[in-house]
């Protein structure tokens, strides 16, 4: 019996020791914190803000293995089907292994990728609006570009990609590809693509923000004469086996993804420095941070989480991007739970009742140093000049405006401290967001307090992400108000969002992404016009016009951009690790330039 008590005593000793050691550990961290001087530098082009401890990481050293944490492990890696719907499929896999025609540079501008000899322009005859109404793009392929199996990357691959995009079972993206009438691949180095009408967002086809080129050889059964044979649904679900990028997948499982340099890659300055990259899932942000702190993973690309500023500290370095996701209050005018019409006056009144700076502070104030209010509706102000970030600037808290708008709409406020009322109904809006998401719940808490003096009340009902995004949004069974983030693309195409015929309904099988945000014909027409206008100057004018119309119509209320963070161990990794924090290709996009600190 004595032995057992000894064992217990021993165990408790060990435990006590552990506790003490833990306490000391945290002390040590603090003191080392105080010792380093931190420099904050904002780089203009990438829109990233880098906070890096003094650069004493040492000389970079070639070779070795780096370990990265992936916040959302792809369900599968197929680049054509719904698997490609998750940003992380692209960020952790596709971007590193597949080539594109046009690609995004670090500032998210479309440029010719290494697979092309040059970018098509009107001047070089690459872009042509034809008299018969058709539209032709001519891409000159780079003769050096090869797949990892040694075959050249040719116009036939472009043709195959087009057919695969349209014909793959469960294909994710056919918009644009459906307008293609033919791809002429008679010259392997020249791809001539003919569209049925003008298509301005063409840089996002076969490349750009989300798309890639696929090798025709990946489907031996493909018959160019029979497009239905270009069905890629059954390949590459567990790792893309070929490469036309800097890396090639050595193995992919649900537990890790191993990438090694692609020896056939033809681009000298993008040859990977390290021998191996291992990506592992870290789907819980707390576990992700813990793994960074313990050094099990060397870098991660988390979505901004509350407290990030305090939690990601030396030896962890961070680079914070303005963000590629716009978060705001999306208004569902057809909400089943509405007790009154969600009129334009009401939407404007809500916008006038909000102190959006205070909301941005509460939401991302613990992530970035100076939170900025988003004043654009469809366009990310850090991507090009499509939005001058003034559209919504007029919406600041204004009691008189709220009174005026609501009174004109038939609302009364019998009790000056109470809620507005109409036909016996209180002005209470049901509001949904993702449950357990502290940032969003913080916004709700702040707004509820904020709008009380304005007589606008909220009923908060939050759902888990699957329920909200898979079940409720697509069927317009939410709101009237929902808080979430929508991704932005560098190209200003917003047809999907504001197409008046794209409102999900029983009749169209709930297809369409205009999830109740726009019912204005003028805005819908403008959105389509933006896609047809291939002249950038004229296009910009249309975009600006649409921006003004949207700010009057208030289909949704933009709040802020969701910051992206590249976080890495400054003592382990060297190189330009944080440069792509604001990239639509994800923070790991340039990992070919990363190396281990010596």
């Amino acid at each position: 019996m004595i032995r057992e008590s000894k064992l217990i005593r021993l165990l408790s000793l060990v435990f006590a020791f552990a506790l003490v050691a833990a306490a000391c550990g945290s002390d040590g961290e603090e003191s080392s914190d105080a010792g380093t001087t931190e420099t904050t530098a904002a780089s203009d082009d990438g829109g990233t803000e880098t906070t890096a401890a003094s650069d004493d990481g040492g000389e970079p050293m070639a070779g070795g293995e780096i370990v990265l944490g992936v916040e959302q492990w792809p369900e599968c890696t197929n680049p054509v089907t719904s698997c490609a719907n998750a940003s992380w499929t692209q960020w952790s896999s596709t971007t590193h292994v597949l080539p594109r025609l046009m690609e995004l540079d670090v500032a998210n501008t479309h440029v010719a990728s290494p697979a092309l000899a040059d970018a098509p322009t009107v001047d070089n005859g690459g872009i042509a609006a034809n008299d018969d109404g058709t539209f032709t793009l001519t891409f000159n392929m780079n003769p050096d570009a090869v797949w990892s199996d040694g075959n050249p990357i040719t116009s036939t691959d472009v043709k195959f990609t087009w057919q695969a995009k349209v014909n793959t079972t469960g294909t994710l993206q056919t918009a644009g590809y459906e307008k293609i009438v033919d791809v002429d691949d008679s010259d392997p180095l020249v791809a001539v693509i003919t569209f049925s009408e003008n298509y301005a967002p063409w840089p996002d086809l076969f490349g750009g923000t989300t798309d890639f080129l696929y090798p025709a050889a990946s489907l031996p059964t493909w018959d160019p004469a029979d497009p239905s044979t270009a069905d890629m649904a059954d390949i590459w679900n567990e790792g893309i086996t070929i490469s036309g990028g800097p890396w090639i997948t050595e193995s992919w499982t649900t537990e890790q993804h191993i990438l090694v340099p692609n020896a056939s890659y033809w681009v000298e300055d993008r040859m990977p420095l390290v021998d191996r990259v291992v990506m592992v899932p870290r789907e819980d942000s707390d576990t992700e941070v813990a793994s960074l702190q313990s050094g099990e993973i060397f870098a991660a690309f988390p979505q901004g989480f509350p407290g990030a500023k305090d939690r990601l500290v030396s030896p962890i370095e961070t680079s914070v991007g303005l963000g590629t996701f716009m978060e705001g209050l999306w208004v569902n005018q057809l909400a089943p739970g509405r007790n009154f019409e969600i009129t334009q006056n009401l939407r404007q009144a809500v916008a006038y009742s909000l102190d959006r700076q205070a909301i941005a502070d509460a939401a991302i104030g613990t992530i970035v140093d100076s939170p900025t209010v988003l004043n654009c509706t469809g366009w990310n102000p850090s991507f090009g000049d499509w939005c001058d970030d003034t559209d919504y600037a007029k919406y600041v808290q204004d009691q008189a405006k709220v009174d005026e708008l609501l009174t004109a709409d038939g609302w009364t406020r019998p009790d000056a401290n109470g809620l507005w009322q109409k036909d016996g109904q209180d002005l209470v809006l049901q509001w949904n967001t993702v449950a357990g998401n502290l940032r969003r719940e913080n916004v709700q808490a702040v707004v509820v307090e904020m709008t009380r003096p304005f007589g606008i009340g909220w009923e908060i009902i939050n759902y888990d992400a699957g329920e909200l995004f898979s079940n409720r949004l697509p069927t317009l069974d939410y709101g009237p108000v929902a808080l979430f983030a929508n991704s932005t693309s560098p190209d200003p195409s917003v047809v999907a969002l504001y197409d008046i015929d794209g409102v999900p309904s029983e009749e169209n099988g709930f297809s369409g992404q205009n999830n109740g945000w726009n019912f204005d014909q003028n805005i819908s027409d403008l959105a389509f016009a933006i896609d047809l206008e291939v002249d950038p100057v004229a296009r910009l004018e249309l975009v600006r016009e649409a921006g003004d119309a949207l700010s009057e119509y208030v289909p949704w209320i933009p709040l802020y951009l969701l910051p992206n963070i590249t976080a890495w161990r400054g003592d382990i990794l060297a190189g330009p690790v944080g440069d792509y924090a604001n990239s639509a290709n994800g923070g790991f996009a340039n990992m070919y330039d990363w190396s281990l600190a010596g």
Partner: protein
Amino acid sequence: MLRYILRRIAVTIPILLGISLLIFVSARQISSPEGQLTLNPRIPPEAKAAYIEALGLDRPWYEQYLTWLGNFVTGDFGVSLVKNGQEVWPIVQSALANTLLLAVVSIAISLLLGVILGTVAAVRRNSIFDIVATFGAFVAFSVPVFLSGLLLQLIFSVQLGWLPTAGIYSPGQQGFDLVDRVEHLVLPGTALALQLIAVYSRFMRASMLEVLEADYIRTARSKGLSELRVISQHGVRTALIPVVTRAAIDIGLIVGGLIVTERVFQYPGMGLLFLDSLFAGDYPILLAVTMIVVLSVFIMNLVADLLYAVLDPRIRFA
């Protein structure tokens, strides 16, 4: 014995059918594959319709249920909805193996420690040891697992750097490596064991107290056997029976019960798979996971009953 087993199985079948129906209805209620499709704006309606037909989602629910049941019984677990046509069974199989390993190791260690603690506590009832052990057990009952897991992670991974925070293998590890595998078992195993030790020690203590009052123990004592012998040879053996059978039942329960632990340590087992498929709306996986959990519960309950009979000579099955 064989007749007893067969009868138990026969009785269990209608119950399992009922549960499977409930699970099916619930799973379809909380996941909407149609919704997943509509989330994607670019899938043309025709393609969507074809997909829905291929999955049989347009047929009445009872037809869907019967089809699924038929497939399940014949070992065809279907394909995942969101993992683009991957077979469900290999996914569930590896999760099941991971969870079983964690459960068995953890239960074995907890059983050993729990029995020792419980026995000592019972023999020295109301001693300081008993009071502290009781307090410890009550604290273990009173701390939510996500908190204790988090603290373990914080202390042993982040601060001390002794053990990995998450997963089952170190990044880059390919193939089996015993040391690495064990290292990744320690923290989730401890989080689970803290609770199990508390349960088993309380169980053992109570069981032991009762045994110590029994006549044959008094007889043994009166025969002049040493206290140590009385306890170890007569007491512990009998008192163990309910604890061991209880542990057998736990194996079945834990297959589906490690949800929080697996979530905290990102341990790719049944609990994590359950959560992931629940939130992703992947009902083929959700159905397979829940049904396998239910089956394992019933199997381990049966095992526990048989174990009881084997261990306790007073029980015979008619």
